[in-house]
């Protein structure tokens, strides 16, 4: 579903065949009133031409616009246009799962592309959060393996043999350490630029590159084919940027093997998290660029645990985290009012 940028009414998709391409159309109300602008996003490159022609055709055929808006189903809409039937028939159809991406969020991060890997720069806090996240994941998975079987593990590669999905991998800040510890990591991000940056960064290190795969997709894209494939799914600092949290978390949960783990780190929705996480961090100390976090999107651990519970997960660990801006380090604290991490395990 898409939202008209002008009047915020939801409108139905038109271009249903190109999973990564989404076109924002003005609502019918806006079109009739003469407002609203056509905005088009580049998607998967080989479909760009199609969408461009689609757009021009639609511009020319304004009457068809009303038809396409009311029809709803993507395929029928585009086939109602002239000359595109045979092209559409050839097009590969993927289940479109765009409901949890928020356009604004994706754009925000793409703008910060070059700064991802500057450890003293914009993403300093994320880099130093690895000090907490990586040992958490490493120890939890190693314990999981020890309980299951007594295999021989090379001490320098404790995560060898594990398949991990890093949702919202961004520039690969968390994916690379996990891959360096031996895990097979699939990094997934909605922003194409982030995937490109991550891939460009990892290609120089052959030992790590052979353990990571970056895919530009959303979690829902993976649900159809990769269900119950991963030993662990990690979504770190993503949940607070997602439009529809229950769907997102459910999709993540579906991808975990029975007995596998899910790790989430995000911010709590409290007055303190507004004060510290938004006002102080963004405006006063400039730890992250202003506008990165929307307090309305924060979620409390209880709500998150409820969603996990509904998906047959049992929480193993819920712990707060705190960032010390003077020392530029994260530390574990009991209080979950601002940042917290959850580790939950799927029922077998």
């Amino acid at each position: 579903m898409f939202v008209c940028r002008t009047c915020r009414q939801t409108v139905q998709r038109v271009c249903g065949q190109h999973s990564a391409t989404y076109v924002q159309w003005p609502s019918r109300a806006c079109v009739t009133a003469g407002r609203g602008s056509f905005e088009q996003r580049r998607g998967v490159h080989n479909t760009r031409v199609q969408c461009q022609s689609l757009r021009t055709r639609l511009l020319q055929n304004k009457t068809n616009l009303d038809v396409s808006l009311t029809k709803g189903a993507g395929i029928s809409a585009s086939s109602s246009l002239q000359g595109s039937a045979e092209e559409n028939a050839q097009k590969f159809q993927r289940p479109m799962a765009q409901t949890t991406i928020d356009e604004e969020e994706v754009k925000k991060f793409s703008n910060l592309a070059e700064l991802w890997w500057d450890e003293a720069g914009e993403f300093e806090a994320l880099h130093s959060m690895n000090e907490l996240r990586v040992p958490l994941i490493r120890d939890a998975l190693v314990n999981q393996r020890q309980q299951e079987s007594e295999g021989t593990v090379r001490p320098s590669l404790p995560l060898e043999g594990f398949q991990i999905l890093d949702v919202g991998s961004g520039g690969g800040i968390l994916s690379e350490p996990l891959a360096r510890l031996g895990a097979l990591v699939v990094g997934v991000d909605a922003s194409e630029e982030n995937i490109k940056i991550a891939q460009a960064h990892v290609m120089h290190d052959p030992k790590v590159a052979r353990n990571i795969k970056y895919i530009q997709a959303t979690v829902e894209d993976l649900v159809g084919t990769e269900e119950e494939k991963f030993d662990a799914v990690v979504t770190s600092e993503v949940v607070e940027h997602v439009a529809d949290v229950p769907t997102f978390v459910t999709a993540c949960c579906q991808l975990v093997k029975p007995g596998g783990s899910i790790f989430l780190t995000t911010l709590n929705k409290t007055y303190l998290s507004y004060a510290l996480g938004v006002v102080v961090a963004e405006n006063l100390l400039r730890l992250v660029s202003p506008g990165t976090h929307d307090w309305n999107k924060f979620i409390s651990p209880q709500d998150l645990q409820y969603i996990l519970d509904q998906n047959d997960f049992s929480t193993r660990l819920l712990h707060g985290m705190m960032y010390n801006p003077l020392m530029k380090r994260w530390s574990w604290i009991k209080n979950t009012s601002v940042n917290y991490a959850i580790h939950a395990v799927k029922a077998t």
Partner: protein
Amino acid sequence: MAMSLSLLFRRCCPKNRQALHRLFSTASTSESSDDADIVISGGGMVGASMACALAYSDSFADKRIVLLEAAPDRGDFHLPKRYSNRTCALSPSTAGLLSSFGAWEEIEMMRSQPVRRMQVWDSCSDSMIAFSQEDMTEPLAWIVENDVILGAIMRRLRQAPNPVDIRFETSAKSFVIPHVSESWEEKSKHPWVKVELGGEKSIYTRLLVGADGSKSAVRAAAKLHTVKWNYEQTAVVATLRLAEAIDNNVAWQRFLPTGPIALLPLSEEFSSLVWTTTPEDAKHLLKLPEESFVDAVNDAYWHERDKNALADKAVDGFSQLLNNIMPGGTAMKQLPPTVTGVEEKSRAAFPLELMHASHYVRPRVALIGDAAHRLHPLAGQGVNLGFGDVECLTRILEQAVAGGSDLGSLNHLLTYETKRQRHNLPVVATIDGLQRLYSTDFTPLVVARSLGLTAVNSLTMFKNLIIQRATA
């Protein structure tokens, strides 16, 4: 027959995975670039011990470490009969580091002399201070020749479980450091450090460790700013023969206005001299015939020409006062041994300066040892700080590997820098302060320092604290 064949086979086959890989790899001789995890530039005591510490560490079992040393390979170390004139005072924490990879046992098998007491006194007054561990059982330090230390470390390095690629007669022509070197912008913009060895050969490494001494090329390439101070002093070293064989476990140091003269025990009959003095004086001393030189040394320890009457009176009165408050607290002044001879060709001199790098690290570059800091030898702390750097960096790199970080990542390198600077800067500042304090014969300062020294001498707790800090 079959058994002997299998024995032969086992002996011919490489014993570990890495060597096996090299046997079967198809690397051609025209290959110009190489990959390494860590390149240590400089195979001196500190560089070699860094390589050794990493080679014996479990976390680095599958990592490729390269050590570049400009000097030729001298093979296995054979202990020479004569003592070398360059020696170090190793602290107990350094002994701990060296024993972690077995080098300390090698040193003890060769030769080392424990120091159980240290006496420091002034030539301008009667004040003195004596350090010793309680009960005189634990040594304060060990005096070991530099060659012995290096020989022991290299021996252990060659036997390391994870073989280190030691390249003798190799020194890097230049370093291309990301975001720093001008040539990096123009060329490939590879994110790793490129160590150019000349002759079209180069190594790409995740982390470059600079252990190449006070005139470090790595530090220059990384454009790290340093604070430098030329002391305008030269240190004269020599191996001296003592008048009689004694239980030589005391280090003697007397502060002259031109600089401190120190006698460090090497064995029952021999001691090592480190005499810091003005450059002209040093040149003169090196030219003196043997007997005159011995006379000069004895004179330096026994003369009373610089005695300041006021300071003497002040110290007398103060120590009487202290004796009344804390009877038996002050240590007694002992007399240093007399020197009768100097080993031929053992006299040498080297200039002294203070140097401290404002930053020890850059992304993918770290400095250890003299490349980061160079001190005045008056407290024998220089090499111990270097070994402390090695220990700290090894532990931090092990933690980084456990956390899956990139070896050259700035996060943990900054932790190393902070830790070491916090430890090193006070030592550097204190030693520099002491050197300045004792290089004058300006009466008020003499009186002040004499009283201060006498006071500290009677505070056993404070002395123990100093010993702890110096040996930590």
